[in-house]
């Protein structure tokens, strides 16, 4: 098991075993359980879920608890639910249709005050599309609309239910590098000047605003919103790619302000891996990125992830293309990272345990006794493109495995003109 995988603080299993007789118990049997803990992978395992929490991962040879509902994994894999550490899932129905797209606002006077959670639609079609492929939790970020500050992102589950946001205010998202330069007026110095001024505004809020009613970079509400992050009390997720940009981010984060920073993108992070490891700054990379797509990605390599992990950098994987609809591809990304040298354990951790750690998601990302029972059953190795999720549980609740896409598929499968016209054909 990788040294990177932290021990999630777990509620003692004993307290769940003592639950009353009416407790809902699910036993997923006959699987290969990747636990995300120091126990590693347990062959021929049964995962016991009681009242929405994992209570035990044990040998399938042992008898099931009384009254347990049995789910047969049929020799497949059982893992913690997959966590997509960066996407715009649920903020968009159709990207190109502005009315359905709440990722960014080019004309707003606000910046850090923008809360992506205000735009989240748990019933967006992209939510179940992600869920049926095993993605149970999503980290969702706003997009910059002409300001280095995009606003604040949130953490949600993919049940599609009301109340599926766990943390409305999980992090501040900002862009540096080429994107930040563009958002700040045309140069990296402009972006950094804006960031320093904003930090100063927020750290002196509200005093400065009592005297002047405005800051150097932020309005009153933006300065207030940036307050916790500017004092190191909330995560700042920084999009940056070039090694020189990353060095400056490290210097800022480890300076007197002691900011809590994570990197998004980081194509050249391997070039400064030791600095990032020492500063304990996590990096979320897209393992597919191996092209000099811009002049800030000249060092892009498919071995970025492997080199970062080898250097001890806290590394998570995201699929950064088509971020509104394709959070599910993080599994393919992780599989490809394995092909480029990452261990299978570290790759699974990079889409479960590590994102949970980075975003402070408590009790998820592992099958530790006491963990919230986000559990996925797979018909094979979850990182294989030919595998699929067969059962998805979120907080112990079995999830529907149907989406608008599967309904369309079922309508047109077979494609025969016999019978009712297509519009009358519904599988339910």
């Amino acid at each position: 098991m990788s040294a990177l995988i932290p021990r999630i603080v777990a509620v003692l299993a004993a307290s769940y075993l003592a639950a009353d007789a009416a407790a809902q118990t699910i036993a997923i049997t006959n699987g290969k359980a990747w636990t995300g803990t120091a126990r590693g992978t347990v062959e021929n395992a049964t995962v016991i879920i009681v009242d929405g929490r994992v209570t035990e991962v044990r040998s399938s040879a042992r008898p099931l608890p009384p009254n347990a509902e049995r789910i047969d994994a049929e020799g497949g894999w059982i893992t913690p639910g997959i966590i997509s550490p960066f996407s715009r899932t649920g903020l968009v129905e159709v990207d190109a249709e502005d009315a359905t797209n709440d990722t960014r606002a080019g004309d707003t006077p606000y910046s850090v005050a923008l809360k992506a959670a205000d735009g989240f639609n748990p019933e967006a079609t992209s939510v179940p599309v992600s869920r049926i492929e095993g993605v149970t939790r999503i980290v969702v970020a706003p997009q910059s609309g002409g300001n280095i500050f995009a606003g604040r992102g949130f953490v949600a589950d993919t049940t599609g239910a009301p109340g599926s946001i766990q943390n409305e205010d999980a992090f501040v998202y900002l862009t540096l590098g080429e994107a930040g330069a563009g958002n700040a007026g045309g140069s990296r110095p402009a972006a950094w000047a804006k960031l320093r001024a904003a930090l100063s505004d927020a750290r002196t809020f509200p005093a400065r605003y009592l005297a002047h009613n405005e800051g150097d970079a932020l309005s009153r509400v933006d300065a207030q919103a940036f307050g916790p992050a500017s004092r190191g009390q909330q995560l700042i997720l920084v999009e940056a790619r070039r090694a020189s940009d990353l060095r400056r981010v490290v210097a800022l984060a480890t300076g007197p302000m002691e900011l809590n920073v994570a990197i998004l993108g980081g194509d050249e992070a391997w070039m400064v891996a030791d600095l990032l490891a020492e500063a304990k700054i996590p990096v979320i990379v897209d393992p597919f990125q191996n092209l000099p797509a811009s002049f800030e990605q000249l060092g892009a390599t498919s071995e970025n992830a492997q080199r970062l992990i080898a250097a001890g950098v806290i590394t998570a994987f995201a699929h950064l293309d088509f971020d509104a609809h394709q959070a599910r591809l993080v599994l393919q990304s992780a599989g490809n990272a394995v092909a480029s040298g990452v261990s299978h354990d570290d790759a699974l951790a990079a889409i479960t345990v590590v994102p949970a750690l980075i975003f402070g998601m408590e009790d998820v990302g592992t099958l530790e006794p006491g963990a919230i029972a986000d559990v996925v059953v797979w018909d094979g190795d979850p990182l294989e493109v030919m595998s699929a999720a067969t059962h998805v549980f979120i907080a112990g609740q079995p999830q529907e495995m149907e989406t608008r896409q599967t309904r369309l598929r079922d309508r047109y499968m077979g494609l025969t003109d016999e019978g009712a016209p297509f519009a009358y054909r519904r599988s339910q």
Partner: protein
Amino acid sequence: MGKHRVFGALLASMVLVACGGGEEASGPVDEAGDDGVRITVNPDPFPSTYTPLESSTLVIRGAIILDGAGGQIEGGMVLVEAGRISAVGMDLDLPDDDSLIDIDASGKWVTPGIIDNHSHLGVYPSPAVSAHGDGNEISGPVTAEVWAEHGIWPQDPGFTRALAGGVTSMQILPGSANLFGGRGVTLKNVPGRTMQSMKFPGAPYTLKMACGENPKRVYGYGGGRFPGGAPYSRMGNVAGYRAAWAEAVEYQRRLDTYAEEGGDPPARNLELETLAGVLSGDILVHMHCYRADEMAVILDMAKDFGYSVASFHHAVESYKIADLLAEAGACSAMWADWWGFKMEAYDGVRENISMVHAAGACAIVHSDSDIGIQRLNQEAAKALSDGLRAGLNITKAEAWQWLSLNPARSLGIDGETGSLTPGKQADLVIWSGDPFSSYTRAERVFIDGALVYDRNDPARQPVTDFELGQPGEGDAK
């Protein structure tokens, strides 16, 4: 065709063809009389200079072979001689050749090279700087006169990444802003100093067309002008295609009259030359089209003007009309799972490719992406596994047709490549294992029998001019 002679500046790239007699005309043409001499257009003014890298006689043994035409051989042999597949099977007789290279590929898989029939490498290269955005002549909705090959930057590092993904040939297309985007070109994926040195010898030209949202958005709403120019709607799109085809029909008629009767040749028109090339069957139509109902309209329009659609591209809704597509013989070049980025992509399903295949239509996995082109085998794997789960009975061997023979067919090069058929060019890949796995990589890639990429030999990994002296030079990709 007969011999060519170039006439002065006025007719810069026009040539003389002596009909029937095979003799060169001498002196100026007598325009009044019909001496059988005609001015015709050189169909190949930027000819391929591709020459295969050096190759040896080669036998690959022990691998699981997918032949690209739907067949599979366990532990068979592939024999390559003079750059061509000479035999595939068990226990082949090997030629008596001292230079024979004998490759033990036990535990590995061998397939035909992947052919991507939808790429913008070179015309939208990496890095994506504005100076190199040469893939779309947005200046008008009908730009059939432009050719993608004139925008290709051979130093695009994307070509080398695609090679490492087992891509041996690809079609480079203009973008989809225009109703008629211009000519596409088919390349061998070999590093070259010039576009011509990559050009697939003998491959027909293609014409890129586009349905739906893109043309009307770019022109109708273009540049912040409201209203912009035509087309502004799908009605305008179809009117725009039809008006252009009508002109092309008239142009072709004048060319035919000239060919038959002589007199003044019609003035050269680069746009109409391309369209007339489609009507005569020399140029293949590749049409960006997402919605099922729109594809059905296009099929009727093509029938009306007497041409056929070689392939619809993106074709996100092909699963809804796979029967019509099978009947029309039109291929669908598709992604495994892209959806939702615009309204016409809203009804995407993961089983699209498998459903099209199962209906007996021609299914192709395409990339339209410098990232996706590096793992088209995985895209096929996703589509296959989703199809299998939905009850469609398709083998891996059949699915490999989506990556090689079917795209070759759509490009008119299936007589030369796309399957491990004796006589065809030896474009093939040795994979580290099952290519339908996330963990498998192309280990060795051969084009015309020559080893052009070897994952284990840095000397066989091309590095573009752009990457020399940069942080990424020669690094693992």
